[in-house]
Each structure stands twice: as C-alpha cells, then as structure tokens.
C-alpha cells in the first residue's frame, strides 16, 4: 500500500521534473515545478516526515512557484516560447 503510493508519487515527481526542463512554455514549466513539489511532499509523508511535507507544500509548491510566476510576468516571458 505505502509502497504503491511511494512509487506513484515518484513517477509523478520525475515525470514533472522532466516536464519542467522540456516544456517550451515557461509558465507550463512553473506549473510542472509546482506539481513536482506536491508529489515530493506526498512522498515526504510516506517517508514519515510530516513537518517537512508541510514545509515543502507551503514553501516549495506555494511561495516558490508564486515568486517564479511573478518574475516571469515582470520580464514578459509569461507566454513566450523559449
């Protein structure tokens, strides 16, 4: 059961990490990064680290993605192709 959850979240995590690097659109990359952080925080719960999971969800998936998105909007890469 736990192993299944771990495996699925690892697959999602690595998949979205690939997507971060290979998406053409920067905003899509940021969304993928956010998904990666969420999958990572699920994995942290499986690995018995609830504190870290909370932090990763709040800081990694939340604050970090917002900062990235704000920056992209400032420099006008909101929709650009790379």
């Amino acid at each position, binding site marked *: 059961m736990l192993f299944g959850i771990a495996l699925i979240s690892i697959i999602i995590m690595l998949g979205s990490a690939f997507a971060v690097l290979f998406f053409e659109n920067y905003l899509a990359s940021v969304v993928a990064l956010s998904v990666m952080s969420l999958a990572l925080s699920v994995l942290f719960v499986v690995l018995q680290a*609830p*504190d870290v*999971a*909370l*932090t990763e969800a*709040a*800081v990694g998936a*939340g*604050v970090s993605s*917002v*900062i990235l998105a*704000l*920056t992209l909007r*400032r420099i006008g890469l909101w929709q650009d192709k790379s």
Partner: protein
Amino acid sequence: MTVFSGVIFTIGLGVLLIAVMKSLILEQVLTGGIGSIILEQAPTEVGSANIVSSVLLAYRGLDTLGELTVLFVAATAIGLVLGQRSPDTKHDSEAGFILRSAADLLFPFMIMLGAYIILHGHITPGGGFQGGAILAAAFFIPILASPASPLNHKVSSLIEGLAGTAFILIGLFALVGKGYFLAPLFGTGDIGALFSAGSLPLLYLAVGLKVGSELAGLLARLQEV
C-alpha cells in the same frame, strides 16, 4: 559540443552516485547515530511532543538563527537590488468583485490557520516556517486582488527586525540565566500540553513572525517592481 560534454559529465556523476547509493543501501552501517540518542533524551530535556521542533529550536537552535539570517540577508539584498519603488509605477488593474471579496473573506481564516500552526508547532507537525509561509500568503492574496493598495513595507520591516531581535534576546537571556546560548528556559511542563516545552513556543512565534513578514515583503516587492 557543450551539450555533449554536459551529457558525459552528468552520466559520469550518475555512475558515481549509483555506486555511492549501492554501498549505502547494502551496508547500512548506521546504528548508533546521534539521532537515536536525541530521540531518547529530547522528551525529558526539552519536553516538546514534536521532536523535530526540539531538534530545530533546542539542539540546533543556532542553525535556525542562521536560517532566519539567510532569509534576512536575501530580503536585504533584494531591497538593494530592486531599489526604491518609484511613485509613478503603473498598477495592474483591480481584480473583479468576486476575487476581492473572496480575498477579504479568506484573510482572517488564513491568519487564524497560520497562528494555529505556529502556536502548535511544538506538539503537532508544523511550526514557525510553515505557519509563517501561510501568514505571508494571507497578506499577499489581498495585494493580488487589489494591487493599488500595497503592503506596508515599514510595518513589515519593523516586525522583521523586532522578531529577529526577539529570537536573539531569548537566546541571550538563556546565556545570562543558564550559561548557554539558546538553552531551553522555563522548565518542560507536561508533554503534549499547549503550554509546555518552556521557551520553545516563544521562539517559534518569533520565527513565524519573521518568516511571515520576510516572505510577505519579498512577494510584495517582486510583485510591484
């Protein structure tokens, strides 16, 4: 050419890491690390039900101070880099009515959630960093909804400075009283009760306020460049 050498470099590192992981998984030498000693001693020495909190604020309190300092350094450097906000900056247009009222409605609940997470950091998962991030979000969402009313940077930097000072002062108080910087104060109390673990909740409050004001200031700064 550079792509090729980059791939080669990464593959080499990958082989090295696989070898390292293999020896880590097969040998698992670690049995008597300091972690197990801390697991035994933390309940009596610090009295916090959440042992990660006792490690974070008691055993490795200086790391937490350093981490707050890194956040402060980054915020200061961002202030230096982005400079003063020019008064004639164009604002984004106001968000619609629904988003604005939702932001107003959400604000008190997020503050409450943040405060709850900070104050229960020593008994449940969570604490200063997580609660601080939620506080920052609580202050940032209204800015997104109505960009013309910016965050009050004076107040946020005041909280920032005072919370950091408070953390250090608690540590120095322990230095004077007990002879050790950041030693736990006020006894341990009953494990699991809200008022337990001595000075830990106070330290977490300082951490939460500092992280919250720092992150809120940071987000607002990046938003209004």
